[in-house]
């Protein structure tokens, strides 16, 4: 059989031998001896294209399969550690209002809980998905029936989180809710979501620096309820002006407890509906919130303000009778405004006072104040939340501070910055500064710098002053390098003792 082989050809691969006659044929594809076709090995090219075909067609089929595959719906209790990264669907009830976490004005993430009866799972959405849901007003609320799909994250600690990848995969199927009478809401309903309807009895706005929530006391025929919401919810309200006493509202709220009292939590502005729009007249403002634009308050005489108007925004005009600096560090500034025989206390905090600038109340000046009517310790007051709400009606050039009741120098504190006060004391040795002169002014309680600028108190008027002269000065309190100083606006605000006594 191997008689045609040359020496050494026994070791040649089988492909070089004719499979029919067994002779050596080398690279030929047909045996030159017997004419039979010689079996050849498959070309690599064949495998190349086979691999390409397998890869692309297989991937295409896998893609079609994936697209038509339903997202598996699971029970929360069935989640196991091996299901980490699984893309699944859960259907259940929202067991906690959606909470959004913001960063730089944009929503960073959104979180809510879903309970399907077998267990509870946290659902998170991040950035663009969370923002899209918020923009579309599709934030789930307590009690909503939802179907949500996303990828699971399961850790050894047993924490199970579902990450919502597409906003459209959150389907909120909230049923039409019946109105719950306020009197029926009890502790047994804590953790549920209810729809309430009633009339606003009281609006309690937080102070400008306060972190407290807004409070609305609402009543219906069966009882009362307290609706609370945070400042960000208030900011989102398109109808802020309607937040006023006697307005009728309908709200979807979550029942909670705070310090053993039932509280109705309003999670978002869209859940509050004003049933009558009585306050839509542009000239009459019902605003009650911080930052409200000035010029919208209802013009009213001071004598006409009553305790029933608590919570209502009004605008008054009058003359500043008295300015009472804060008695405690966190207490508000009080300005007593009079109109005829009637007076009212206008109160505002440091943040407002610092921004009043030329509108800083001056005793004796005419003033316009817009604020929210309030009652404090049985006394009426007008609460001002923004510097724009106070306007000095007297022209600034004629602004001569009428002397108020003199205060001791020690009573002049940083809380009175930019406020006008009257002090009586003795001048010390002056020293020149660029653009003016500084006198130490002292009384038995302490010493303060009196700064007389050339442009406000010209040299001719200053020449009348000398060390040892006793003066009564009405001036604005200012601060320079941590030290307080008094800066009178004109020579008339500095009266020497004899002059003062004559007046």
């Amino acid at each position, binding site marked *: 059989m191997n008689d045609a082989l040359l020496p050494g050809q026994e070791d040649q691969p089988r492909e070089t031998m004719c499979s029919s006659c067994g002779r050596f044929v080398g690279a030929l594809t047909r045996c030159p001896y017997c004419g039979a076709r010689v079996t050849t090995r498959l070309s690599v090219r064949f495998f190349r294209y086979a691999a390409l075909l397998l890869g*692309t067609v297989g991937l295409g*089929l896998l893609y079609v399969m994936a*697209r038509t595959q339903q997202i598996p719906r699971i029970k929360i209790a069935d989640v196991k*550690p091996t299901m980490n*990264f699984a893309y699944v669907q859960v259907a259940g009830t929202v067991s906690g209002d959606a909470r959004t976490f913001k960063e730089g004005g944009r929503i960073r993430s959104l979180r809510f809980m879903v309970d399907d009866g077998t267990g509870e799972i946290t659902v998170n959405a991040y950035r663009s998905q969370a923002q899209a849901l918020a923009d579309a007003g599709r934030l789930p609320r307590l009690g909503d029936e939802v179907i949500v799909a996303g990828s699971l994250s399961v850790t050894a600690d047993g924490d199970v989180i579902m990450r919502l990848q597409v906003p459209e995969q959150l389907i909120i199927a909230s049923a039409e809710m019946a109105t719950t009478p306020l009197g029926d809401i009890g502790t047994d309903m804590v953790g549920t979501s209810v729809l309430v309807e009633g009339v606003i009895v009281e609006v309690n706005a937080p102070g400008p620096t306060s972190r407290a929530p807004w409070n609305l006391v609402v009543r219906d025929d069966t009882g009362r309820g307290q609706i609370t919401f945070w400042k960000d919810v208030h900011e989102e309200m398109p109808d802020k002006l309607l937040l006023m006493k006697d307005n009728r509202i309908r709200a979807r709220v979550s029942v909670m407890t705070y310090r053993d009292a039932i509280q109705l939590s309003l999670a978002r502005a869209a859940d509050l509906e004003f049933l009558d729009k009585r306050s839509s007249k542009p000239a009459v403002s019902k605003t009650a919130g911080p930052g409200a634009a000035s010029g919208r308050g209802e013009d009213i005489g001071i004598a006409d303000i009553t305790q029933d108007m608590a919570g209502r925004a009004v605008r008054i005009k009058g003359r500043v009778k008295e300015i009472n600096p804060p008695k405690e560090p966190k207490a508000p500034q009080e300005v007593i405004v009079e109109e005829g025989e009637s007076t009212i206390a206008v109160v505002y905090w440091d943040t407002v006072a610092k921004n009043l600038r030329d509108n800083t109340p001056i005793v004796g000046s005419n003033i316009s104040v817009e604020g929210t009517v309030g009652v404090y310790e049985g006394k009426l007051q007008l609460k001002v939340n923004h510097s724009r709400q106070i306007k000095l009606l007297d022209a600034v050039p004629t602004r001569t501070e009428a002397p108020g009741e003199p205060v001791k120098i020690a009573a002049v504190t940083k809380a009175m910055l930019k406020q006008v006060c009257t002090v009586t004391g003795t001048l010390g040795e002056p020293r020149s500064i660029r653009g003016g002169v500084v006198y130490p002014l002292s009384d038995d309680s302490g010493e303060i710098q009196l700064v007389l600028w050339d442009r406000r108190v010209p040299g001719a008027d200053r020449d009348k002053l000398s060390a040892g002269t006793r003066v009564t000065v009405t001036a604005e309190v200012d601060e320079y390098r941590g030290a307080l100083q008094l800066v009178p606006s004109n020579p008339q605000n500095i009266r020497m003792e004899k002059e003062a006594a004559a007046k």
Partner: protein
Amino acid sequence: MSAALSVLVATLVGTVLSCVISVLPALHAYNVLGAFVMGMFALTARGIELAPEVYLPFMVGMIVGWSMLNTIPSILLGAPDESAMFTVLPGQKYLMFGRGYEGTMVTGVGGLAGVFFLVFIVGPFAPKVLPPVQEVLRLHMHWILWVIITFILMTEWPKGGNWGPGGWKKFFDAWRSLGAGLLTFFLSGFLGFILLYRSPVSVDVAFQNIMPAFVGLFAIPWCLLNIISGTRVPKQHISKSLDIDGDLILRSVGAGGLGGGFAAFFPVVTGGVGGLLAGHATAQRDERVFIMSQGVSKLVYYVGAFMLLFVPGLGITRGGAAWMMRQLYMPRTYYDYYMILAAIAIAGAVSFLMMSPLTRATIWFIEKTNYRNASVFALAIILAIVYVMTGWGGILVMTVATGIGLIPVLFASRRLNCLGVLLLPIACNMSGFGQDIAAWLGLI
């Protein structure tokens, strides 16, 4: 004392078991660890709970042993995993010159140097240094990942088109391997998107979603290639000494530590990518440094990535083993960290000591029997693991991935392009538009 003994015994058991896995071509430690984790869940479900002092060192032993000893089939059987792909060519050269034993041992020295690097350099400083580094880099990961992808794709070089008259034929010849590389990257990326959002693998074992794809992309093509290839391995010489010195070792640690460390620290970047970047960054041309640094890189990548989970205050999860570990245990204290460092040191020492006898045994096996049988055996084990763990869905994914994984092998482009399965979807997700692409594809 009993805890220390548990750690010691478990480390030794894990390391010894890794010997069996390591010498089988294409069988990855992660495949076995996946099965181990599932076994742990099954035990827990039956009320049997093992102490962390048992399973943590066991896993470390497996990872360290495999990272070190997998060099043996990489060089002697030509069946590397993707992170060892750079050792194939120089390694094959060593093998064909009858120096397979030396090539294996040189890579093993690199692995041992990698253990020293992790235990004595990274270990003491990691808790102080890595958390602030992570904090700084956290917001930049996405664009760094895109730069890496660009680098991988742009550094592919044409394997043809060098000779002959210019024209379309030459143009297509030059672009054949480049095109195959790009096609591989985007096909595997597309596969990654499908697996991330709509995997055919059952949700009950979703933590192993990507495993069948990796098996198909990397393991099976090499098994098939080994089975059908007709290469005859020449007689191997068992040398008494190694052609290396301290300078070469230090240079290897520098290059390999950089590459492996980078791969371990950055998400989705694997040892192969780290090796590629470090190779270009350090430009070490000596073949011995090249082989040894791949040993360092591979060990630092696999072991370092696992170790990062235990670094107090860092809180990052990198690499398949760490992700699987998170299902079992969440480390938080220095106790865990020191235990892992101890296990790494012990496993490193034991696995290096096993390197020489295992290499000799493998060489004996190659000379005495048809080594393709080992590939057939490994292929059977891999198929069994994929089926048992992920069912027919996994087999389907594996088959499709095999088609994609064969493209670079048959068209002479980089197998690294198969990493598109992770790189592309994760880079898109980290940049914030992964979901949009998935939605556009109709996957979600």
